[in-house]
């Protein structure tokens, strides 16, 4: 995967990407969008895959569920990984389901030894099943649990070190959580195992008004915030140039807006290279 800026491929842009083949360094799609047996998206992605490096990003495997991993979900993931041979495969450090009941959302976990051991075991299962390394992504959260043995950044770092997986560092999520829970986002970045960071995500958030405390929602519905661009530059300075993705999932704008955001990320990557040279 090139250490350049890519975009998340979303349904409204598929036809234009197919027809125009815009100059994008790489594309990412949600793994579950390929779970269907056949149909138009598979047909489109087979053609797109021939021209662009691809990353598959899972949103439904629920690594942190207290019950068993969903075997059928994992089997299907393996089938599409075998079929599309993506450069990167990622999942989230979260849970979303129990006893077969799904929230279809990315839910928070307590940062305890018990959950750490659970995640390390699950990541091992997934990497064994896929026969390859996966990346795990830090999520945005709107609550914290009582107790806990770790700060979030130490927990994320421990999961990565103990499981031997790579890290998808979502810089927007770090900023969102730093506001929601009150911590220094740069200390978070510094605590992460640098060599393990193999992808960065950037997205826009929204502010939830009318509350007695500041609260940001990871809405993926607007441009990347100025504070997140600054944090991203610090992340690139720390981790070096890393494949960076612009995510946009709600109120999806014209393709040009995503390309423009990707160009801004590319400027940061290029500036680092120029400086490092």
């Amino acid at each position, binding site marked *: 995967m090139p250490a350049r800026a890519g975009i998340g491929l979303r349904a409204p842009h598929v036809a234009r990407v197919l027809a125009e083949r815009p100059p994008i360094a790489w594309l990412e799609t949600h793994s579950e969008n390929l779970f269907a*047996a056949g*149909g138009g998206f598979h047909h489109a992605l087979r053609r797109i895959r021939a021209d662009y490096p691809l990353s598959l990003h899972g949103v439904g495997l629920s690594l942190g569920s207290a019950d068993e991993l969903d075997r059928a979900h994992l089997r299907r993931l393996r089938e599409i990984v075998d079929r599309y041979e993506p450069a990167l495969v990622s999942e989230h450090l979260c849970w979303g389901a129990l006893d077969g009941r*799904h929230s*279809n959302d990315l839910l928070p976990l307590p940062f305890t030894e018990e959950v750490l051991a659970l995640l390390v075991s699950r990541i091992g299962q997934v990497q064994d099943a896929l026969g390859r390394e996966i990346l795990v992504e830090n999520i945005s959260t709107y609550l914290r649990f009582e107790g806990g043995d770790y700060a979030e950044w130490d927990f994320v770092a421990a999961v990565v070190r103990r499981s031997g997986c790579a890290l998808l560092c979502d810089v927007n999520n770090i900023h969102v959580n730093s506001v929601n829970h009150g911590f220094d986002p740069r200390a978070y970045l510094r605590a992460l195992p640098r060599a393990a960071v193999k992808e960065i995500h950037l997205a826009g958030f929204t502010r939830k008004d009318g509350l007695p405390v500041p609260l940001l929602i990871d809405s993926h519905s607007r441009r990347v915030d100025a504070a997140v661009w600054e944090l991203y530059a610090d992340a690139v300075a720390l981790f070096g140039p890393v494949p960076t993705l612009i995510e946009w999932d709600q109120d999806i704008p014209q393709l040009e807006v995503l390309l423009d955001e990707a160009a801004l990320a590319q400027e940061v990557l290029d500036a680092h290279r120029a400086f490092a040279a």
Partner: protein
Amino acid sequence: MHTEPSLPDWQRQFLDALYDADARGPAAAVLGNGLEPDARLRIYRHSSEAIHTGTLRITYPAVLALVGEDYFDQAARGYRHAHPSRSGNLQAFGAGFAGYLEMLPDMRELAYLPDVARLEWLRQESALAADAETAGPDIAIDDLLDTDALLQVALHPSIRLLAGAHPVLTVWRYAMQPTPERLVLDGEGEHVVLWREAGEVAMAAVDPASFACIASLAHGHALDAAHAAAQARDPGFDLAACLASLFRQSLVTAIHPLNAS
């Protein structure tokens, strides 16, 4: 003595709170930090609710257009509460929405709505069904009809069928592209065939005999049995014409002798 709930217990409580506004949830385990723990859990409930209602809006655009956003979202929330999501893949969510709508008391005045929802779920199934190579157009239909062998005509996996009790395709088209004229719903039920064409779902209302023939073939029955099923609806049914239209739409994937075993 305060004991921490086990991981499965608080995850179960968390999901209860996401699906039921009255559920207590794991609030005791949540730090407030300037907000009520319940308010923090509510953010997650609204988020999961928005994901599920948003998914149903995408899958059921004609139902949404027919009943309006407020009624749709209320029904979607009711459906979600009664039928929690059972998959990490959202494409699987909403299969039972038509059946749920049918149970709502308002449906006495919107009797066609569950049929429209059924049609939209079949559109989703057709759009996501497996791909298949189609049999070439060089097959001579007359030769097929002359053979004594028991034949099976395999149809494309994207074919779906709906025998509507209402003019369901007419209503669907009106909902998706309303015309200034008032839609008069005194027609008979429509028999709809759905399939995928160049990546998009196509639909056509067909006569009951053709529908019976295609449905029989889709169930894997022999061509003779499909012919008989159609003739039971219309003694003058033209099998050659029906097969020709299936070939024309590239919906036949194979023809082979039916294995007697």
